[in-house]
């Protein structure tokens, strides 16, 4: 049961949603686009992919895991008790304007943080209260490859509502019950006409068409294990990498983090912050040993994690959504598609019998 929203009513609709949700939407800052709390009158930028996706709304770049305070015994200051507090501040949040690939990133997060032996209570608290209204891509950028990794320009995974931009408005479809409620709650949304639906469908089909043909990544785990000790391959692939964190921080699926303490006087907090597996410090041990001391090892682990380890642990789900941000924002334009296809095409040495 598709609905229709006029372009002109979009701001009004988001304001209405603002009554129940804290609404985030993409806005331009400098030449970049990021998701920020929506307020009326602020220009949205939904004509191109946001530079940094909505990941930080559910997985903040920095969050307090806990606050602690050292409390002194009145009588004996040498005796200190420590109070630990956890602030539970998740509120209903609506993410507006994510792309299907962005929304699919939350799928990976769900796998990593909620479908494992120990679950991340902070992420879950936010995820449960989040609604995601995505916009289908009717045009694909040069860096787009969602179809390679199981997504689509109009993919619905991770979204509650999918909007398709058509002439002068959006065709809105609910994906989940939560989405249905979102669409039902406003008079601004009318029933979509068959013409509108047809137009949307055509646009989406064209977007599908515009994407390059998807290679088959079924064999990737095997290929990547086979290439594990081929350091020449990885050194050449990583040669131009400068080990910054642009790719990981902008990636909708990268979920590694760091935990550090800060203390001022008797108070302090334990912070969870985004971390970057391309940095040498990520695995640096106090002893001086580092299992991934060179960038070749780190790129191997990053690609391995996305196309081999994560799929192995999560029913074949590749931990890449093909949004292309890591390519587009890479200071040296390192192209993960090229790394993965090279790995795929690499001929592995014949099975070595000694190697079990």
């Amino acid at each position, binding site marked *: 049961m598709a609905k229709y929203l006029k372009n002109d009513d979009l701001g009004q609709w988001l304001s209405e949603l603002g009554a129940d949700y*804290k609404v985030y939407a993409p806005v331009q800052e400098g030449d970049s686009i990021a998701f*920020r*709390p929506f*307020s009326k*009158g*602020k220009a949205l930028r939904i004509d191109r992919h946001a530079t940094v996706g909505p990941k930080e709304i559910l997985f*903040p*770049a*920095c969050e307090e895991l806990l606050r602690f305070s050292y409390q002194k015994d009145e009588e004996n200051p040498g005796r200190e008790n420590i109070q630990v507090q956890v602030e539970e501040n998740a509120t209903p949040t609506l993410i507006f304007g994510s792309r299907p690939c962005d929304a699919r990133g939350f799928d990976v997060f769900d796998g990593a943080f909620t479908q494992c032996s120990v679950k991340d209570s902070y992420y879950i608290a936010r995820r449960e209260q989040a609604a995601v209204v995505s916009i289908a891509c009717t045009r694909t950028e040069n860096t787009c490859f969602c179809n390679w990794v199981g997504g689509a320009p109009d993919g619905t995974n991770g979204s509650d509502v999918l909007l398709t931009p058509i002439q002068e408005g959006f065709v809105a479809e609910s994906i989940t019950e939560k989405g249905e409620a979102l669409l039902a709650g406003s008079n601004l949304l009318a029933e979509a006409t068959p013409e509108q639906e047809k137009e949307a469908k055509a646009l989406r089909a064209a977007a599908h068409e515009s994407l390059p043909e998807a290679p088959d990544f079924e064999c990737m785990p095997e290929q990547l294990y086979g290439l594990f000790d081929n350091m020449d391959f990885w050194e050449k692939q990583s040669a131009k990498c400068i080990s910054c964190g642009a790719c990981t921080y902008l990636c909708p699926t990268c979920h590694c983090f760091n935990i550090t303490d800060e203390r001022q006087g008797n108070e302090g907090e334990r912070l969870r912050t985004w971390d970057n597996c391309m940095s040498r410090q990520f695995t640096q041990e106090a002893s001086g040993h580092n299992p991934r001391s060179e960038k070749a090892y780190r790129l191997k682990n990053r690609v391995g994690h996305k196309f081999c380890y994560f799929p192995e642990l999560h029913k074949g789900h590749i931990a890449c959504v093909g949004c292309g941000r890591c390519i587009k924002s890479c200071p040296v334009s390192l192209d993960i598609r090229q790394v993965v296809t090279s790995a795929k095409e690499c001929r592995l040495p014949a099975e070595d019998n000694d190697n079990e």
Partner: protein
Amino acid sequence: MPVLNGRELRIVGFLCNWCSYGGADTAGVARFDQPTDLRVIRVPCSGRIDPLFIAKAFMNGADGVLVSGCHPRDCHYAEGNYYARRRLEVFKQFISVLGIEPERFEYTWVSASEGQRWQEVVTKFTNQVHTLGPLAPIPEVALSQLAQTTGTDIREEA
């Protein structure tokens, strides 16, 4: 709590042990009255002062920073204040681009015998910072989070 009832501002002093810290001692011994805003950090030599300590002080809420060392040629370590002079001068000229008035930071030379001069320096600098008033603090959490807690979008106002 340095900002005593609004009467004081936060002024950080970095003094070399051999000359200026001694100069401040000399001023004390001579009972030369001084404003109370300044808090002194003792370092061995003005050459020890990485200008970034000063930047850090400003980031954390200092309203003024005063550095003082031995007069050129008199450095206990022979060369420390020569390096300091270059670095501090560069830093002083740099901070205007950050939006910090250069007058919030001064560096000067006071010897251990110059108690009177120390009194003058402290008084003059403190007055200078008071003329500029407090420096707005730089937020420690993301602005968007600030918006969340205050319920207003400060971006919009800015």
